[in-house]
């Protein structure tokens, strides 16, 4: 059991709301933000007044005009909206420091550890204070920035996301601890993030209309066809990501714990080709760090380290080396990668792309290493902890140059 502490704050009809803030005469009128007049493009935001007509963000403006010919069509003004997004973020940060922007109008918040801050005498349990804080946050965004938003608060990320959608407009929806399945079951299948129009069509065609039906498929051909999807929905409802560090579903699935099949790799194309070894090795250090972090999350160690290098003549070289024993440590991987770099790169041509890969993966089953005081592991674990909760980019190593120790 996990109490609801993950919130998804979604700004209602964000671009439309900003346009209305800038021009109050638009309030109450049907507004569609999308391509400039006479241009082709897609709807980026549609006000609630036009939604009953079938206008949705993502559809072409031409199609929207057919459905809602009398609406006011405004061009998407790039550069205007992000300032409001930043203002919203600043308001959120007054509630919790653990914020992650999922997009310009969607934020995830982690409220774990804030219970005592928001508790008041007489509260029936710590969740009461958290729910109150979330309601106050919604009002504060409206009052301080002038934008309506909706918030879903749930024990895990996918449910928080769904709840924020159900809370619209301008509402708060809470999924209580233990109420995860009861919340999910009556919903149409399309509400689940990751079930798109195609899958919906297949499910509905087979008579599976709600997430509850999908989770609880009777044995037989339907379960054979959709059972694993249902199991995934069920598992994610009950044990979905409880922190901001979990990556988007596709990425997470890719790095599922204990998956020893395949390889892990990260690569990077330079904005401008790099000709000096230091520049290349700095990038390799950062890639080694990232790929090892992913290995640890996936609970695997790797026997083989791969370097990929593409010079500006588009010639690509890969070099690999097998280690005497498997590792998930960036210092070991980086040292190996530097050795491979010497073999692979003469330095005559500038480098366009570098990549670091790990293969011959082995499942560690979550075995932890002894926290030897010197060097990476102890600090590394702390860094991994921060990244698991706040995302990879929440913290960066400050190592400069090859000779510097891995962590000061």
């Amino acid at each position, binding site marked *: 059991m996990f109490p609801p502490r993950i919130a998804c704050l979604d700004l209602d009809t964000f671009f439309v709301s900003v346009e209305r803030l800038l021009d109050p005469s638009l309030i109450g009128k049907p507004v569609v933000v999308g391509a400039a007049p006479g241009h082709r493009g897609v709807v980026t935001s549609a006000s609630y007044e036009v939604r009953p007509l079938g206008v949705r963000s993502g559809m072409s403006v031409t199609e929207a005009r057919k459905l809602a010919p009398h609406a006011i069509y405004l061009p998407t003004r790039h550069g205007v909206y992000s300032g409001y997004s930043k203002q919203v973020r600043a308001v959120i940060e007054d509630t919790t420091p653990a914020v992650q922007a999922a997009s310009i109008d969607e934020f995830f918040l982690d409220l774990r550890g804030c219970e005592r801050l928001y508790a008041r005498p007489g509260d029936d349990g710590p969740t009461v204070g958290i729910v109150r804080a979330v309601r106050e946050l919604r009002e504060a965004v409206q009052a301080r920035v002038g934008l309506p938003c909706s918030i879903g608060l749930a024990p895990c990320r996918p449910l928080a996301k769904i709840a924020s959608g159900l809370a619209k407009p301008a509402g708060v929806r809470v999924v209580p601890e233990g109420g995860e399945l009861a919340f999910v079951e009556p919903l149409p299948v399309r509400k689940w993030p990751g079930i798109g129009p195609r899958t919906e069509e297949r499910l509905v065609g087979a008579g599976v209309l709600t997430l509850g039906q999908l989770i609880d498929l009777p044995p037989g051909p339907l379960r054979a066809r959709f059972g694993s999807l249902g199991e995934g929905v069920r598992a994610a409802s009950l044990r979905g990501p409880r922190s901001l560090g979990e990556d988007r579903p596709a990425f997470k699935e890719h790095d599922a714990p*204990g998956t020893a099949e395949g390889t892990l790799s990260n690569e990077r194309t330079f904005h401008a080709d790099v000709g000096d070894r230091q520049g290349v090795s700095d990038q390799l250090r950062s890639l080694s760090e990232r790929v090892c972090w992913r290995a640890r999350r996936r*609970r695997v160690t790797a026997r083989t380290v791969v370097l990929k290098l593409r010079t500006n003549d588009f010639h690509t070289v890969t070099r690999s080396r097998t*280690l*005497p*024993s498997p*590792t998930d440590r960036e210092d*070991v991987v980086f040292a190996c990668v530097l050795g491979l770099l010497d073999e692979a790169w003469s330095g005559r041509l500038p480098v366009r792309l570098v990549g670091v890969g790990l293969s011959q993966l*082995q*499942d*560690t*089953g*979550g*075995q*932890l*290493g*002894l*926290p*030897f*005081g*010197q060097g990476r592991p*102890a600090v590394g674990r702390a860094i991994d902890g921060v990244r698991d909760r706040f995302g990879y980019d929440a913290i960066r190593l400050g190592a400069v140059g090859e000779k510097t120790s891995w962590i000061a």
Partner: protein
Amino acid sequence: MDLYIDRDELGRGLARIQGIIERRSTHPLLSHVLLHARDGGLRMTATDTEVAYIGDLSANVSRPGQLTVDAANLFQVVRSLPEATVQLTSTSNKRLEVRSGRSQFKLPGSAAEDFPALPAFDARGTAKMAEGALRRLVEQTAFSVATDDVRYGLNGAHLEEVTAESGEKRLRMVATDGHRLASAEAPFEGSLALSARMLVPRKALAVMRKLLEGDEDQVEIGFGDGAIRLSRPEQTFWFRLLDGEFPDYHAVVPTENKHRAMARRDELGAALKRVGILVQDRARAVRFAFSETELEIEVQNADRGEVREVVAIELEGAAIQVGFNARYLAEVIGVLRGDRVSLELAHPLAPCLVRDSDHDDAFFVIMPMRLD
């Protein structure tokens, strides 16, 4: 060379060197034993150039001489001989004739001059210790030494001098593979000429375990430059040390442990043994749930079945659930001696200290696994 020797004496002597000779070496004579018949007996020498052994066997020598033969081959032959007495004779064409009763073998050999040079050894200091005590140090730590780890300093056992609470001077041996750590110590006399970066390699540990047969007999430990020599009556064994940096292991020995469980060693050991039947996959965490009076060990493994064991314990501190590689714990329980063992840790992801309630001369640290 011509001599008579007791078959079993020769067999024991050859058994001791089987772990030293290098069967897969590129140098063919590293798989050989050098036989040297001289006044008073037969001397056997074996080496892989990192580890060297010299053992003297009593034999009735009528003609001195030297010859090398394949050690594994000779061992198999000697073990199969029909009579209790064996005659070894070298022929002019570098062959060794082995006769016993009515059986006669002729084994190809090589000249003694072709035998590889032995590693040099100059003692800087010596200490003495009971053979059984030194063997215990090896037995209690060798299983935790890493195998071919990229962290070179984990591939051997570390030695250091410590002073016990009683004021007794002890030699401590420590080994870790990065997931678990074992430390054992025993009293010695004399001086340990230890220096940093001296690690006993795996192979030397395996050989020591085999050669240290006695209990109270004293073994002399000589410390040389990057090498250690062990001398016991009729046998000398020395080996090169690994030049690697052992990590600062003190940092991983937990001191502030809020949870402390005491269990009977035999009960816990037996339960772990049964659990081990289902846990073939070392990457699988076994759930250990400690409550006030019981430790519940549980494995859920769809393929091989499920097992649940309950062991009586006394727990200080709150109930706690921890995942462990059950084999790591079983190996530690297997080398402890007291009736009761204690498991102590601060939280489910912190290192767990395992000790014996009756002996202060060994401790073990096991890192948990994540459960979920």
